[in-house]
């Protein structure tokens, strides 16, 4: 569904990406794991078009595109909620930027809020709720991009362990119920084991795919089952080698 072909990018003569290719099947959850500073953020910048690439082509549903601007949802480590909008308005922001909100939009957002356990907080402001709730609201906003594709840039790394577990479950909901194709970047192998259909391990400078893993078992998985623990060791080892 999404095809990245031969992306390359130099920063001051230093190759961050060279000849990087990756294909995402429809409705798949691909997790990129790599050492910090390996160029994952640069890849996202190139995909979104906020930084121009030196070479490479991009295809979405077989059609070539310059970048994914306006074509993909986005969620970052920080919740990036606007403090002057209520939670429900924040979630609907991608719609609000395009057109006037209707009562149907609000109804849909209310439904989504109840599956994200945010019911009753629709009219609260971001600074009045916990970090986990704010991040769930950011997840709702990712849905309202209404794009088939979602780019998640370490969305779980700023929350505590308990919140993290519930957010993982909700990310799966985003994929399965709303049929999104998801590309997520993380440095937490457990996130990858729990969520991914495919785990891609990356190396540093230039960023390259060193190994790919397909974790077994239907989701939601239990990352402490022996097979997955085995896989985790394997991934950690190949991460070490990639450095």
């Amino acid at each position, binding site marked *: 569904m999404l095809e990245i072909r031969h992306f390359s990018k130099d920063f001051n003569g230093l190759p961050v990406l060279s000849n990087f290719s990756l294909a995402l099947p429809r409705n798949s959850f691909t997790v990129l794991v790599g050492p910090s500073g390996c160029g994952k953020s640069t890849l996202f910048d190139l995909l*979104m*078009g*906020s930084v121009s690439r030196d070479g490479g082509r991009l295809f979405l549903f077989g059609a070539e595109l310059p970048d*994914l*601007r*306006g074509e*993909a*949802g*986005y969620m*970052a480590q*920080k919740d*990036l909620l*606007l*403090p*002057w909008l209520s939670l429900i308005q924040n979630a609907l*922001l*991608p719609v*609000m*930027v395009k057109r006037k909100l209707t009562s149907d939009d609000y109804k849909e957002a209310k439904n989504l809020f109840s599956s994200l356990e945010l019911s009753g907080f629709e009219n609260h*402001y971001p*600074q*009045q709720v916990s970090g986990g709730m704010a991040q769930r609201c950011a997840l709702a906003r990712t849905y309202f*991009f209404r794009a088939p594709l979602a*780019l998640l840039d370490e969305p779980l790394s700023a929350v505590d362990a308990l919140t993290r577990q519930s957010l993982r479950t909700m990310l799966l909901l985003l994929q399965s119920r709303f049929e999104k194709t998801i590309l997520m970047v993380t440095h937490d192998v457990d996130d990858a084991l729990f969520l991914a259909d495919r785990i891609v391990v990356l190396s540093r400078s230039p960023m390259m795919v060193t190994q790919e893993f397909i974790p077994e078992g239907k989701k939601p998985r239990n990352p402490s089952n022996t097979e997955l623990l085995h896989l985790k060791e394997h991934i950690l080892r190949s991460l070490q080698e990639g450095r």
Partner: protein
Amino acid sequence: MTGRLIPAAATLSFVLCWEAFCRLQEIPHFILPAPSRIAILLLTEAPLLLKHAAVTTFEIALGIVFSLAAALPLSIAMFFSPLLERALSPLLIASQAIPVFAVAPLLVVWFGYGTGSKVIMAALIIFFPVTVTLLQGFKSCDPGYQRLFFVMGADFRKTLRFLYWPWALPYFFAGLRVAVSVAAIGAVIGEWVGSLEGLGYLMMQANARLRVDMVFACVVLLSCIGLLLWGGVSRLEARYVRWNQDTKEIQTNK
């Protein structure tokens, strides 16, 4: 309660000391009038004083409106185009290095003794702080949010409306608050240089006749105008920059 009591007590004791000093030392009222004399004058000459105060207030208000009308589009344009910013910011800074007193006589020559030259004087004084703080506010916007709006495919106009403008509002109000307190300076200087009405005019006339009490009465009224404008801006800010207040509230609750 004590929060208000202390400044009130301090002000009151200052006025009382002043009064006592004037009476005990028998200072002539054309050197330093006692507060009671000023208060009585404020009451007896109220119609005259208010008439001139109204003129000055009008000049200040119009000056604020004009400077905002120029500062808003200019700061947005400079934010949108770094080239324009680079081109204009030395000019803006240089224009501020010119003391307004120096141009005041020129403005009177160009725009006459009437309201025009005073409005322009007030506007000139306000224009710079508002433009600069607003530009600073736009530029302080978190790059994470800018990226979010970029991915959403929002153009500059939409991003301005939903992100940059609300983001810069606290800065805007900070600039405006400074601006309204100095706007009075511009208007009064304009009146000093040449005018037929206004508190500045009244002050010049009174000073020439050693009516120092009248000068003080004008000063009191000017302070009142400044305080009223300040209060007005604070009220607007409380209304439109609610999220800052919310944060404060939460922090005190914890």
